[in-house]
């Protein structure tokens, strides 16, 4: 078990982040914190994706012009490119979410979900 953790600590760490993100989304009453939770959750997945590309002893996937490309030991570039795209998507989501939160705050004057529930129940 210890040996597995020592060699796979990157995976263990990402799944701890995964859990933290999920917990914040569920347990926090504050809407902004909930959105932060979503971001932590997404980041955990991004890190997980990037860590799958790791090659023992491999360098950055930049191929020098002079050498033979086949003999280089590099990390897989595909997950890194993919995660770059996913990060852009995540940023856009955060922006839309924050815009919605601004509107909710302007309408109800609160960011706490429990207060929000009470205000909406009164109407």
């Amino acid at each position, binding site marked *: 078990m210890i040996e597995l953790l020592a060699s796979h600590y990157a995976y263990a760490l990402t799944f701890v982040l995964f859990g933290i993100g*999920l917990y914040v*989304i569920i347990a926090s009453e504050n809407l902004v914190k909930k959105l932060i939770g979503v971001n932590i959750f997404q980041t955990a997945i991004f890190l*997980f*994706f990037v860590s799958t590309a790791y090659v023992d002893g491999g360098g950055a996937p930049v191929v020098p012009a002079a050498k033979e490309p086949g003999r280089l030991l590099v990390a897989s570039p595909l997950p890194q490119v993919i995660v770059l795209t996913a990060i852009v998507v995540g940023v856009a989501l955060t922006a839309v979410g924050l815009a*919605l939160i601004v509107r909710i705050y302007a309408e109800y004057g609160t960011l706490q979900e429990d207060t929000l529930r009470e205000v909406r129940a009164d109407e």
Partner: protein
Amino acid sequence: MSEADLLPVALIVTPILAATLPIALGLRFERAGWPVAAVTTTGLFAAALALATVVYAGGEPITHELGGFPPQYGIQLVADGLSAPFTVLVTAAAAGVLVFTRVAGPRGNAFYTAYLLLVGGLLGISLTGDVFNLFVFLEISSLATYALVASGDGPESAVAALKYLILGTLGASIYLTGVALLFMATGTLNMNELAGMVPAELDGQQLALARAAFAFVFVGFALKVAQWPLHTWQPDAYQHAPDAVTPLIAALVSTASAYALGRVAYTVFGPEFLASTPYLTEVVVTVGSTSVLAGSALAAIQQDVKRMFAFSSVAQFGLIVAAYGVLTETAFAGAVFHLLGHGLLKGGLFLAVAAVALSTGARTVDEYAGLAARRPLLAGTMSVMLVALVGVPPSVGFVGKWYIAIGAVEAEAWPVAAVVFLSTMFTLAYAARLLEKMYFTPPTPVEAPHAPGAVATDGGRDRVTTGMCVVLVAVAVAAVVFGFAGGVFYDSLLGPFLETISIGGV
């Protein structure tokens, strides 16, 4: 490369590029959005029809490799017998709903930008042949949907949109985890390549990764498709979205996710994998069946008509997911047909709800009392669609349920057959409540909370236009006509696709 090869690209690129026009032209012309959206969606509908014709005439999938990169590195777009009808449905619904937004909808150029982005994202989901690209298009369409839901007048719509955003993002992220696990197991993201590798070329550890990947993918999509108990975002989002937006998202957004689930489950993982993994089909069938029962029961107790139809969607999608789990050719065909039929019917029903709200202000079941006498056309088309939703033959709702039931009997999955029957009874329960109110309850002068504002603002003029009536009648007629087309669809359109994934061999 023939010209048809470029059609899938054109279908995705055109709406996304056109989405910039309403904002750009909006600097000079105040109401540029609607004409741009109308021209684009009509053109897309024609292109989708052309694409479907080529696909079915040739019997071969049309593929396009973006930028000429081979599928190992690049992204492939694929139009085959399964995706072609969905592109037609997406473009048709997008064009039909526009008729409503001209009078009823939220106006403003930004709205039409989001509208076109949504259409582009949905077409991307239908046509992509790459599991990661699917995630990107899923998020493009989701982002546009959040914006559209939030474009309602009241503050409630912002709360509903934020709830949808948080849960929708969770769903998409969980799907992305599944993609990461799948990539670890196989080293490719292309659906066709994956199909060749899962499960035939996988050994112990890789197979375990693939199984974990399916679990993540399934849970992610269950959130997106709104399966009980992950459905909680959906009724709020449907109810608080503007009237003219609900038909679009009800007809398309969850439908596209359910299509993507079927595509990933059957093309990428394949029936062999689904059948060989212990408890997999049982879990899928249980989730689907529970959604049918829970969704129907919740729909039957709702007072708000939009909310009632929203819970009804939870039930209908449950039926589709359960049919995916049955694993026979007939049940899969039934699921596809029910998916298309439900998209058509639910879109039409929400359009009718929007038209009723426009002309009379009625929103709850009680307020619908005596509608048939006041608005015979609206009540008539709505009844046809309701009866079709219940599944009375000959209608599109019947064909899907029929094939699912036959497939369940073939596979000896008796609970699914029972659930199909029960769902019909439940659907009848809430559809009959509405029918009874519309036709057999005299209009009572209820203190309708919505009525005065909605009608009086326009000086009493009936705001239901001829175009809206034409669309509603067209949907009602299509619901009946496609009821006769079940056999044709099965044999000539879906048949070639079913052969390629060979469910029959299981």
